């Protein structure tokens, strides 16, 4: 028995997928200059709308479409507030978070007083590939949502880095007046980005409810929206960084659930941590960071070898991914990729 087995990888992937999709959408919106701190509410809207659709029309495809519509609805409210009325985006996001939580549970109590359960998305095996040992089981025996998420993230990456639209997007978030002067409709780009974020979050929400488990519960997204935002920020507004962040979050979460059922922390966990630190040390250029990293590395290796009867309370394990992320940020070299300059700044032409 171990911690890092196949089921663990599958579990990490399932945890990661909705966060990754929502975070990718949010990344697009933030690159255009709109931050929605109420992403949690948008996820919930998607989760509930998908579930509501399922209770009316028992069809998973339509359920997901319903979820997307729900996400779009709240995202559109964000768009109206941030792009048209030009209110402060942070308050708007807070309001959207409150609204999303309140509305979904209110409507749930009203329209679906008797909770229903649906069959979750079935796992699909990719022929041949799913027979590859370990990797096949992990990568090619998943539900459709996970495949679609991967495809969408790849597409989003292509759109952001390989198309004119991606350039316009970056320009809109960085220097809107330059985009404006080049003939790009700042409003148009921001609206598109906000709606894409809404659709992605709606689909991710629908996965959390009808896709993964087939039920809806009040506030069932359990903070995944905040994690998605944290992933965008921690990833320095780049897709690669975002992927790394979501991986860290999902892996630690999956490890945490496993560690609780074990009496002590197994050596392999320390080993993996040591590996991560080693990679960090190898990449770091600052002598002091290397020194500290090496010391930590030594400690972890000692823990891995000695396997002391150590255990960590669950909540402290849950704090680990964020601590890790902070350490990584502090040790990393000051990146030139900073926040988009116009993030949360409404564009008013006469003031630019």
């Amino acid at each position: 028995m171990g911690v890092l087995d196949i089921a663990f990888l599958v579990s990490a992937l399932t945890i990661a997928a909705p966060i990754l999709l929502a975070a990718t959408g949010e990344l697009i919106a933030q690159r255009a200059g709109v931050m929605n701190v109420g992403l949690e509410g948008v996820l919930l809207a998607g989760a509930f709308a998908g579930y509501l659709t399922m209770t009316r029309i028992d069809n998973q495809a339509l359920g997901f479409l319903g979820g997307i519509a729900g996400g779009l609805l709240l995202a559109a409210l964000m768009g109206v507030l941030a792009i048209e009325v030009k209110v402060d985006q942070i308050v708007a996001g807070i309001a959207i978070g409150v609204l999303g939580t309140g509305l979904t549970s209110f409507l749930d109590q009203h329209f679906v007083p008797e909770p229903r359960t649906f069959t979750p998305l079935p796992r699909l095996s990719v022929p041949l590939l799913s027979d590859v040992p370990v990797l096949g089981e992990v990568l090619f025996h998943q539900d459709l949502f996970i495949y679609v998420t991967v495809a969408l993230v790849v597409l989003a990456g292509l759109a952001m880095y390989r198309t004119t639209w991606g350039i316009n997007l970056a320009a809109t978030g960085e220097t809107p007046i330059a985009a404006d002067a080049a003939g790009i409709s700042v409003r148009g780009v921001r609206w598109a980005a906000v709606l894409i974020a809404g659709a992605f979050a709606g689909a991710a929400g629908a996965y959390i409810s009808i896709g993964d488990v087939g039920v809806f519960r009040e506030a069932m997204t359990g903070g995944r929206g905040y994690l998605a935002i944290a992933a965008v920020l921690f990833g320095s507004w780049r897709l690669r960084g975002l992927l790394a962040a979501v991986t860290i979050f999902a892996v630690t979460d999956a490890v945490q659930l496993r560690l609780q059922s074990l009496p002590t922390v197994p050596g392999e966990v320390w080993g993996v941590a040591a590996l991560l630190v080693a990679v960090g040390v190898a990449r770091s250029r600052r002598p002091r960071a290397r020194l500290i990293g090496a010391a930590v590395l030594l400690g972890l290796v000692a823990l891995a070898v000695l396997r002391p009867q150590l255990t960590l309370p669950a909540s402290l394990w849950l704090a680990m991914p964020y601590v890790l992320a902070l350490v990584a940020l502090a040790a990393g070299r000051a990146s030139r990729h900073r926040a988009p300059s116009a993030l949360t700044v409404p564009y008013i032409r006469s003031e630019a």
Partner: protein
Amino acid sequence: MTAAAGLIRRDRGMPAWVGRVVTQLGVAAAALVVAALLLLVIGVSPVDAASAFWSGTFGSPTNAGTTLTQAVPLFLVALGWIVADKAGRMHVGFPGQVVTGGCAAAAVGLHSGGLPGVVAVVLCALAGIAGGALWAGIVAWLWASRGVLEIVSSLLLNLVALQTLAWLVRGPLQGSLDRQPQSANFPASALWPAVESVPGRTLSYDVILLPLLAAGLIWVFARTTFGFELRASGGNLEAARWSGINPVRQGVTAIVISGGLAGLAGAALLFAGSAPWLSEGFEAGIGFNGIAVALLARNSPVGAILTAIVFSSLNVGGTSLQALLDVPSSLASVLQGAVIVLVLVAAVLAHRRRRAAPIKMKELVA
């Protein structure tokens, strides 16, 4: 000269002022209509709801005391945001700082049984300030010396603080009846004094912090070199540096002060409210709501007093709507969200009328 620019705006002529009030009244009316419609959906009379809301918030001295006392932490967080924002540092670490401030205050408070009241109260407040400031200090250090954006680190630190609290109330600070994830009750001597004449003693003396700190902050920004240098650093960091200000020091100071205010808010939540113990959810969303309070008040300390009271009455009134009229909690939060959205829109519309938009000099390339 207008050292108070941005805090106090002068308007020329009445019409703009009148227009603003008219707009705000209009939006208030819209908020009421939306609320009434929502209530009608579930078959609750809006008139009953209004009276339940009123009686729950300001209908009796007891309830008014509760409403005002609960406005204080919101206001403190709002001030924290204003200080950091004036220095150009956009951190969102208030939930975490409220939590760490509260934990530090609780740790001290739980052991201050033998101390005389005044000493215990002051010690707890100081511990709260220190706890919040220290947590903010991490954000400040990461920003100043490692170049980590404060919004990123503060967001991550919030999550760490919440988990730490979950651990503390199950581990070192656990001390409740029934082994619930709660601390023991704080000794009565450590609780902040309350106004005797209010029945139920719901009005804690810390409400005097509202006018005091608001006035103090306005004065600091407008009339002190410290406040001036802070605003200059926030206005244009490079220009401040080139003119002999140390904007990094100003930024660090601002973040730490704002963390201290949030930490004090954490202490106020625990020691001035009617629930004198540490529990997992004690932060109750005031970290983010405090930001909303500040932003809706357009970063004006005086405005923040009013918005904090409005927010706190939304919370308190929401609970009394549930208890008195059986309005579901979900609807109460829908109402809250709708009111925030409408107030936001009102603020912007009123502002547009004034035609004196704040300037974000987003320089282009040069």
